[in-house]
Each structure stands twice: as C-alpha cells, then as structure tokens.
C-alpha cells in the first residue's frame, strides 16, 4: 500500500450525488468490431471475452460523482464457469436422464415433469448467482460491491412465485415482482454499506389491472375482427388488425413498464439516501422501438449499442436524494465466487 499521508487533503463531499454515462457509440464501435471478428475466428468461444470487454467499457463509462465504475471480471472466469457447469451439472444431468429413461422407460414422463420445477429453480439460482458474480466484480473508488450468497433461497422464491403467477393467471404479477425485487436488492452491498428495498405492490395493482384488462379487450377484439376477416378472406383487414394489436400492446406495455421501473427503483435505499426514477412512458416507448429496430435490422449485432442506450437512459433518469457518508463505507469482506455465470450460459439468460 503506498504512503499518501503527506501533502494531501481529505475530502468529504457535500454536494448532490450524480450518476452519469459518458460513453459514445463511436468509442464502443471498435470494441464491437474486434469482438465480432474474434468471435467468428474462434467459432464462438471468444464470446466470454467479448462479453467482458463490453462490460469493462460500460462500467468504465458510467460515473458516480465523477468517478468511474470498474469491472474486474475476466473472460477466463466466465469460460471456466461455463466449463464447470457443463461437466458438473449439464453432462451428469443428461447422462442421468439418458440412463434412467433407457433402464426405466416408464419413468420417462415423470422425469420430464420433474424437470420443470427443477429448471424454474435453476433459472432463479442462475439469475441470482450472476448478480453475485457481477456485484463482486464491480468496483467504485476501489471498493467492491457484493450480493450475499443466497441463490438457493432465490431459487425457491422463483418456484413459489412461478406457481402463484400461474394460479392467479398473472394477476398477482405486481406482488411477485416487488417481492423478488426486494429480495434481490436487500442482499446487495457496496463495501460495508447495505441496500434496502421495501417496495409495496399496492400502488402497482391499479396500473397492472388497467394493462391486464386493456390487453384482454384488445385480444378479444382482435380475435373477433380476424376471425370474420378470415371467413371473408379480407387480407387488408387481417394485416391491419395484426399491426394494430402489435402497436397497441407495445404502447400499453411501455406505459406499464415505465411505471413499474419508476416504482421499483424509487423504493430503493442506500444508507440514508433515496433514489428517484422518473421515466416518461413516451421516452421508454421511443427507446424500446428504436432498440428493437436496431436489433432486427442488424440481426442482433447492435446488442452492445442497445445495452449502452439502456444504461444511458437509466443514468439520465435517476436522481439521488441525500448525502452518502463515504467515510463510513469500508471494503467489502465478500470477495465473490472464483468463476461466474455458468448457469446463465446453460439457460441462455444473457
């Protein structure tokens, strides 16, 4: 550790905290091109390193109080994570299913049914573990983030709420989303400081109900119109109905999602600091449409740029209220897992 006690002034800021994204498409482009080329050359294996390069860039271009974030993960860690999950989990699972199905063909349908809850559980575990890895590889002012290792609990929550979602025909979605979000955020740390989240689902129910009913009405109307048009072979009406359905559902969901994000992020607390997220539905809609077009017309190659646009939107719409006492935040005791995100790869969760 260097000695910096001489000629220095200790600072404890007393200004409005700000988060800013300073990256530009022109800076990201060379990284994307290089990634693409090397991914092709290595028949896709390089994608672990490509993902890391993009993360390093996005993190570095995001500044909190003028200081950049640092992503310390490596492609090798992601690659090893994938290898380990493959040999420890995927391969034994495939062999196990194969052996059981061959020796006890009667059990095959039961095995297949049993796999559904297992996969739901594992998807939950995968999402949570990815956060454990990413938070542990995120630094700001040389202090590590952390996500407490509670992936199994999150996996069980995923099963529980998947059943609830199914039984309630999706009507309990706000309650489920808030509960999952609170669990995820409550277990986040930055150094020794704790994130807290107690988002209530009640304010979201009215919005969700409007969305739910609107979609049902739209679908009902669509089926009526389209079934009549099919009988009379009226193709312009069929095409028009499809376009109308697509546009209307996109607008409705954009409205709902912007409200959802505003509510979820605004319920987050860090030390005594609160967050406010104020995203206009139209702004969200505009960005979603442009991003979708970008992905469609580039066959997915623009994904890093789309990601960048989302990060920028997030940074532009968030406000931080209160003062963080940085002197009270010390280095995190959690160093995180050695390898990461293998399960995410297994389930292709991105």
């Amino acid at each position, binding site marked *: 550790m260097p000695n910096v006690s001489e000629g220095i002034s200790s600072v404890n800021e007393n200004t409005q905290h700000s988060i800013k994204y300073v990256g530009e498409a022109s800076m990201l482009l060379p990284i994307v091109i290089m990634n693409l080329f090397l991914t092709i050359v290595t028949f*896709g294996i390089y994608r672990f390193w490509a993902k890391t390069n993009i993360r390093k860039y996005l993190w570095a271009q995001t500044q909190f109080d003028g200081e950049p974030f640092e992503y310390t993960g490596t492609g090798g860690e992601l690659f090893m994570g994938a290898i380990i999950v493959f040999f420890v989990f995927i391969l034994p699972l495939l062999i196990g299913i194969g052996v059981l199905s061959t020796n006890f063909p009667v059990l095959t349908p039961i095995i297949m049914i049993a796999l559904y809850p297992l996969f739901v559980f594992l998807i939950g575990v995968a999402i949570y573990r990815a956060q454990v890895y990413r938070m542990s590889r995120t630094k700001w002012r*040389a202090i590590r983030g952390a996500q407490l290792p509670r992936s199994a609990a999150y996996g069980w929550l995923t099963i529980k709420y998947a059943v609830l979602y199914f039984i309630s025909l999706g009507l309990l979605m706000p309650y489920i989303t808030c509960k999952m979000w609170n669990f995820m955020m409550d277990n986040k740390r930055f150094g020794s400081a704790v994130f807290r989240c107690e988002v209530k689902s009640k304010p979201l129910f009215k919005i969700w109900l409007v969305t739910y009913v609107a979609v049902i009405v739209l679908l009902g109307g669509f089926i009526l119109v389209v079934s009549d048009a099919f009988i009379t072979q009226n193709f312009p009406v069929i095409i028009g109905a499809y376009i109308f359905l697509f546009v209307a559902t996109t607008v409705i969901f954009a409205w709902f999602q912007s409200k959802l994000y505003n509510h979820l992020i605004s319920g987050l607390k860090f030390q005594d600091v609160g967050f406010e997220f104020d995203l206009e539905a139209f702004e969200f809609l505009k960005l979603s449409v442009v991003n979708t077009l970008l992905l469609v017309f580039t066959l997915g190659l623009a994904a890093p740029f789309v990601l960048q646009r989302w990060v920028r939107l997030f940074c532009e719409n968030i406000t931080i209220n209160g003062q963080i006492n940085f002197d009270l935040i010390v280095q995190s005791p959690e160093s995180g897992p050695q390898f990461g995100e293998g399960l995410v790869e297994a389930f292709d969760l991105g």
Partner: protein
Amino acid sequence: MKVKANYCDGITANFKVLEVSIGPSGLTLPSGEVWVYEKLKLIASSKLDGSVTYNNKDYDGPNLTLVFDKGIDDPARDYLKRFSSHLTGDSNWHFVRWQIVTTAVILCLMFCFYLGYPYLNRAIVSVIPNSWAIKAGNLVVDGLYNEYSSNACHSADGDYALEKLVETLEIEGLSYPLRVEVVDHQQVNALTAAGGRVVIFNGLITKATSADEVAGVLAHETGHVYYQHPLQGLINVLGFSIVGSFLGGDAASVAVVGLSLSYSRDLERMADEKALEILQDKKISAQGILDFFERTDKKEKNEIVAELEDIFSTHPLSKERINIFSKHIAENEIKGTSISALSAEEWESLQNICNESNE
C-alpha cells in the same frame, strides 16, 4: 508537470486529493513514491472531461484518477500521452494486442482439443459397460424398425446363409458378438449400431451381384464393431455438438459440422482398413467390395453434384476409397487363391431372405 488526482485507498469509499507529478518514468505521489507507467492498468478514460483512472499492478486495492482542469485538451494530458498513448486510453493498440493474444491461446486450446479428442473419446468408450452399449444399440435398431414399419427378414435358408457369412467374418477381439439382420428396405446401405448390432438393407443385397460383395460390406461393418465406432459416434455427438454449442453458441455449429465430418471419415477409413485385413485373413477377395463401390459410385450423376456429395459425406471420398481397395488387391491378392464367401445356393437363399419372409 503537476496534475490534480483523486486517490482512493481501497479501504474506505472516500478519496483524497493529491498533487501528482507526471514524469518520464511514472507518476510521482506527494510521498515521493513513483507509480511507474509499466505498472499502471487503465481502468477508465473519459472523453467527456479527459479524466483517467488507474490501478497499480503492485497493489491490490488503491486507484488513482487524474483530473485535468482543461479536460481532454489539457496540456498535462498531452504531456502524459507522450510516454504512451495507452495511458490516456487514446490508442486501442494495447487492448487489441491482448485480445489477439487471448484469441491465439483459445485457438491453440481448440487445436489441442481437436488433436486429443479421438484419444479422449476412446478412453470414455472403454469405461462404458457392454450392457449399456447393447441397450443403446437395441434402441437405435428398434427405432429404425419402427420408422420403416418393418422387422428383420427371416427364412430358414436365408438365416442359415446369413449366419454362415457372419461366422466366416467373425474375428477375435470383438467386445460383443455380432448380431446381423436384414431389413426389408430398398435403400442400398448397411449400418452398425452400438453393441454389435448390424443391419443390412435388402436393397444392398439386391444391388450386389455376388456374396463376396455383401461379405466385403459386412467386413467393413465388422470393423466398426471391432473399434466400437457407434459408441464413439455417440460420444462424438455429446463431445462435439453439446460442448461445442454450449461453449461457442450458434457460431460453433459450423465448426461442429466440419469436425464431425472429418472425425466420421477417419472412423470409416479405419473400418475399411479392418475390412481388408479381415477379408485377407478369411481368404475372401476384396474385389467384391471394390466392384460394389465402383458400381454404386455416382457415375450417372453430374460431376459437380458428385464432388459436393463427396465433400459433405461422412465416408471417405469415393475415389480415395476405390484407390485403397485397388492397391490392396494389387499388392496382397494372388488370382485364383481366394474362396467364395457363400456357395451359389446359399447366396440365392440370402438374396431371397426377405421374399420368403414376406410370403
């Protein structure tokens, strides 16, 4: 040249403002300590305000952000750039260099995997119990019969002839006994499943003009059984396809097809060599199998179509195969010394095995 810097010690989240001197070998901190340029790892470079943040490779923790009053055009930033453009993040060469090294390592590992894969495959096959292999073979053949809504052909004389042919070609060192059947289908083909199960399509027997031709094909299939190729093929699917697509995603599909073709051809070559060895040992002429391949080769087809079929075939290229058989005959066989695999009556019974079965 001096510049303002924010120093984060990695102990608390606060920072300290320092005045750092930019020198020819590194950044000098107020304490006199020098962070040499070779040890600096660039974390971030902002094009907006020109600030640059570094780690020092000698320490696990602290970082230093140089803040330039005049932003990206600050003279101190330009001065720093003189020592290495990598220091301000204005050159991508450092990044590109590491990516190329990483790629080279990945390619080397892929090549090693490609070279070592056959050995690994054989090692895995050697630990699989025979009972599993037999079960897997039964599954494949039963599935085939279901697909063709057919069963193995049987007739008293035909079964006797087939059994005699199998006994004639049976060799030592097989992991499981040969179980050969004829299925009533017009395809000119034969296949070997795991566990020693061989299925000859009746179309092949119809197309053949002598028992030696069928014997040649059966010797080739016996070669597959000897080396346990069907099991290797199964592991091959797991190895190349699943590992490949898992690690490489969609892009790996192309490589997987190429590698699988190459690997399958190697197995076919081995089976051909074993077939020639068996035929020679049993004193059956390889002229039969040569005639069969020559006749069923793509003579009637357009040359380009034939070439393309060869390229994407799982078997060795036709010309190459014919050359190997011809060379073997020329070098190892003396005219008039070979025996026929079956008598004329037995051959006729084998030809009619499915006709009599249907009756």
